[in-house]
């Protein structure tokens, strides 16, 4: 296995004066045991506790305090901590959906600067993941820990009963919908949980790194562009043909449909295989397979980063950076995260590990990690906009109006544009 040395960082830490205050005060007071505080959310908090022995091996003198909170609570707590600069952890984990928002505020360290110099390591990570943490000022405010290459999970047993070849699901959106009609007619199973899943992919497909989803580089709203029209039209076709189960993702009904084979496909990140295998539908082992998204759409589903607040304790910043290096640049940690919590590694050095070639029993022995590796390497880094979360809601609401109340698509997109334009500069 390829193990990469992280020794220079230790010297950096010493140079940055971790020990200096202790030496200076040694005569007067007993030296304080340094503690590094890391704030994280599930399952990263669990992973960090697993990794603690490796941390202690590197820094026997530094204890690791993990502050774990639920996903939303964690990000709310980090927002509050940054806003008041109080009780800031030394390292904070950030979900990809918050990276763009936190990047705007200027509360996080620019990791390009010494002693971090993240730019020196850039080539070691998946390009899209690294670029995702770069803000409009060119600052890199977080290091990428994992990403979620998009993929399609389908029930092979349902497809077999319906007499549908798996290739039909992926060739094009038209063939995907045709296959769905056949599945519905022959088995009664719906193609997908909710039509919104289709829209979410189509509006993102084809975007290149640096492009924005809802706003372009000049802050102009993009929601009337052809990709949105097509996304809405396809979602409407799905609904009109009765191909979606009208179930919200992660609802009890949706999970039950996945278990019982009432929904034939789920479009999600690669991590979904672990979710299905461990707690959503373990009894369906062997019946699922993975495939690329239709028309080879390359869309990311989630990802995690680690960041350092500008106003965090300065004496521990070098240590904090060494912790981030451990989590993002140590192949053993990255692989452990992949194996234990299905966090797909951003570290390219891990991508040649034999684990990627192992058959996956839950997917009927398929070697699906190879497929996800290819998707991960070409994932684009979309430019985040401060209004992104609001735009997600607006587009979801307008699609609801199209699907439920028959609102025309041009009208829905025009209404969405008006709402987003109003907020573009807030």
């Amino acid at each position, binding site marked *: 296995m390829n193990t990469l040395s992280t020794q220079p960082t230790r010297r950096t830490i010493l140079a940055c004066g971790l020990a200096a205050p202790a030496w200076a005060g040694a005569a007067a007071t007993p030296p304080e045991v340094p503690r590094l505080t890391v704030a994280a959310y599930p399952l990263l908090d669990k992973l960090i506790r697993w990794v603690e022995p490796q941390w202690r091996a590197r820094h026997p003198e530094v204890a690791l305090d993990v502050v774990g909170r639920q996903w939303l609570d964690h990000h709310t707590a980090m927002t509050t901590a*940054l*806003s008041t600069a109080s009780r800031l952890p030394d390292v904070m984990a950030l979900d990809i959906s918050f990276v763009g928002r936190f990047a705007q505020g200027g509360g996080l360290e620019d990791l390009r600067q010494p002693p971090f110099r993240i730019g020196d390591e850039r080539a070691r990570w998946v390009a899209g993941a690294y670029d995702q943490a770069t803000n409009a000022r060119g600052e890199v405010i977080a290091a990428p820990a994992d990403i979620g290459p998009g993929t399609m999970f389908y029930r092979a047993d349902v497809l077999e009963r319906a007499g549908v070849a798996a290739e039909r699901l992926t060739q094009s959106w038209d063939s995907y919908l045709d296959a769905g009609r056949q599945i519905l007619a022959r088995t009664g199973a719906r193609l997908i949980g909710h039509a919104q899943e289709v829209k979410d992919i189509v509006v993102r497909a084809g975007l290149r790194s640096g492009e924005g989803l809802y706003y372009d580089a000049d802050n102009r709203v993009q929601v009337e562009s052809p990709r949105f029209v097509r996304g809405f039209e396809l979602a409407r076709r799905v609904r009109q043909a009765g191909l979606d189960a009208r179930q*919200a993702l992660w*609802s009890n*009904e949706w999970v039950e449909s996945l278990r019982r084979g009432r929904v034939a496909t789920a479009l999600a990140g690669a991590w979904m295989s672990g979710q299905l295998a461990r707690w959503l539908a373990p009894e369906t082992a062997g019946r699922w397979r993975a495939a690329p998204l239709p028309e080879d759409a390359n869309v990311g589903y989630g990802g995690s980063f680690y960041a350092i607040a500008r106003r965090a304790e300065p004496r521990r910043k070098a240590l904090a950076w060494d912790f981030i290096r451990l989590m993002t640049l140590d192949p053993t940690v990255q692989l452990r995260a992949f194996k234990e919590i299905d966090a797909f590694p951003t570290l390219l050095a891990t991508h040649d590990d034999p684990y990627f070639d192992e058959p996956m029993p839950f997917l009927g022995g398929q070697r699906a990690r190879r497929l996800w590796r290819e998707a991960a390497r070409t994932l684009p880094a979309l430019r985040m906009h401060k209004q992104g979360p*609001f735009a997600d809601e607006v587009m979801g609401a307008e699609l609801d109006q199209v699907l439920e109340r028959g609102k025309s698509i041009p009208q829905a997109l025009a209404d969405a544009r008006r709402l987003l334009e*109003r907020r573009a500069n*807030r």
Partner: protein
Amino acid sequence: MTSAAAPLPRRRRRWLPPQWAPYVFIAPFFVLFAVFGLFPLLFSLWLAFQSWDPTGGLHAMHGVGLENFAFALGDEWFWKALRNTLWLAVASGVPQHLVALPLAAFIERRVRRGRDALVGAYFLPYITSTVAVAILFASFFSTDYGLVNLLLDRLAGIGAIDWLNRAEYIKPAIALVVFWRYLGFNLVLYLAAMQAIPRDLYEAATLDGASPWRQFLHITLPGVRPMIFFGVTLSVIGGLQLFEEPFVLTNGRGGSDQAGLTAAMYLYRMAFDFNDFGGASAMSWLLFAVVLGLTWLTQRLLKPPAE
């Protein structure tokens, strides 16, 4: 031998002048109120005139005058959330009182044995955790496996309704939960008020041949009018600030087409999901104005005339 002059009684050492004592004893309340009550209020008022990206720290704030209020007043979603809130306040609030009043009268007049247990049972939802209530109802409202659809199917042959994912059903589902939760509270209020009505009024009315319905109309209702005013005022304020039930039932998002998005939920989302603390603060003060206005209106309509 004569002793020297008798020693003066030893004065107790006072660490605090007695005239300060009341202030010291009352201080904990004022300190707590200042920290957890007054400061957030004033900070929110200050924020309403600021543009602030909280992740940039306190120094990232800058004044924008009335811009946040202008934005809020022109925000379609704010008005949509206000309409949802008013709908829910009426649909859940009015039945609470229309059912609680006669129910309280019935229990007061007819139920003797086990009254406390019965009232306790009605009151139980009020003291149950909102999250537990919402999770329970999310399960009841489940489309394929929920009790509500099962009953509707068995009793009336109505097909499966997607209560929590269809815009037209979300509001009734939330209103039902809120009604169920606060019915017991209002019942206890009215029962307490009815117990204070002199028995001899009913006895005299009975001797005069007044029916139970006439007694309810002419003795019970006027007797509990101050409590109706109090209960309705609480319902107006609570209804306009409705947050927990729709938040949990719609996974914090407001549901399909934001049909379950209340004003309180929207301003929470504005701040914590959409990172717009200035706009959220302005909306919270506008919501306060609405609550104040409707409370005043309630007072005008329902407050009993002074004796």
